[in-house]
């Protein structure tokens, strides 16, 4: 069986990660496919993984009675989705739904967490990468809150 390592190496999230770390990460990775409309994870469910998007798009959604599904953001190839696995209570805050055929690599949270605890160097690499994503999302969220195109 072909290893996922070369695929991970090409993803922007892992850019610059040292090969021996990449090898460790690959041990926690698995390939997944979703059809358009399929749910990848559901709000409230236990969050055990995060996903590296290889191809396709997904939406982060939330359901509000009376309003139905509200889409927060679309994510696509090159993006990373999911950080609920990092912290208790390890539950998904949003629902992730494929809006096209979707190929992702799922990374097992528990597996990674253990390896990060054993090697803080790896842990640091992960934190750097995740905090960067978090900052990007936070800044985008703030801009979205400003509702810039609305007429005051």
């Amino acid at each position, binding site marked *: 069986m072909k290893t996922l390592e070369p695929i991970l190496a090409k993803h922007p999230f892992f850019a610059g990660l040292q090969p021996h770390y990449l090898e460790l990460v690959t041990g926690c990775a698995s390939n997944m496919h979703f059809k358009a409309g399929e749910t990848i994870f559901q709000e409230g469910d236990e969050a055990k993984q995060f996903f590296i998007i290889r191809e396709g798009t997904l939406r982060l959604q939330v359901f509000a009675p009376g309003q139905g*599904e509200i*889409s927060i953001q679309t994510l696509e190839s090159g993006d990373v989705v999911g950080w609920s696995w990092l912290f208790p209570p390890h539950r998904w805050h949003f629902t992730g739904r494929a809006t096209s055929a979707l190929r992702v690599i799922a990374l097992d949270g528990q597996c990674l967490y253990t390896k990060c605890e054993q090697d803080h160097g790896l842990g640091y690499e992960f934190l750097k990468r995740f905090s960067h994503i978090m900052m990007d999302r936070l800044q985008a969220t703030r801009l979205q809150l400003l509702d810039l*195109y*609305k007429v005051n």
Partner: protein
Amino acid sequence: MLLSAEPAVTTTFSSDPMIPRPYEIQRAKWDSSDTFSLELTPVGGGDIPAFEPGQFNMVYVYGVGEIPISISGDPARRDMLIHTTRAVGTVTRAMSELKVGMMLGVRGPYGAPWPVDEARGKDIVIVAGGIGLAPLRPAMYRILAYREHYGRVVLLYGARTPADVLYRKQLEQWRAHFDLDVFVTVDRATNNWRGSIGLVTQLIVRAPFDPLNTMAMVCGPEVMMRFTTLEMEKRGVNSDNIYVSLERNMKCGIGLCGHCQFGREFVCKDGPVFRYSQVRHFLTKWEV
């Protein structure tokens, strides 16, 4: 030198730059719930004055007032003047109620254009937010008319909701071009929107262009433009190669009334299109 084959036109209508020329409305159409386009021709016939992408006119509604509106039509077409604007103020609301066959006053064109000619040989990234697509459309027309002069051409457009997406048909046509990358995103959407949700600034990170050989033209709300330039710089685009179009109060359009001052610039005559590096010092100051 301009790429356009049209000869430069000197307006012989009046030596007094404050006198509007009457135009007749040929077509009026709502682009969204609050945004509309007017197609105008000069009363008494003749061509509209030649204009460059990014320039604006002062448009007068009889008895109501006059405001600056950027030109949104194709600069190669001299038979029709197109303005797209939002019905949000006294003058634009009055304008939105005008019917085909009625008249408007027009003075112009005024202002500094987008650097479509200087951009030859470069990749083009056009980033528009909301109504900001209107002043950029002439740049798209010009660039597409001389497509072979440019590298990659990317249009990134963000709107508030799918219903607010301007020039939808045009965007679909452009998207069909094999030598054009068009990405549209909305800030919020219901489920029947199949496209991207998120900010236009988030499209920049993956847009296909060469940061070291790119000319970026950005138009939208000022905060959106500031964040867009940050993303551009993260990609490695030099701020000398980023242009923004600013909006300020204007009463004359020709640098005499003082209203549009922005630091040392008169937005009406030194802009509205500015090289970002030229105005960044003032853009990050409050209430300039």
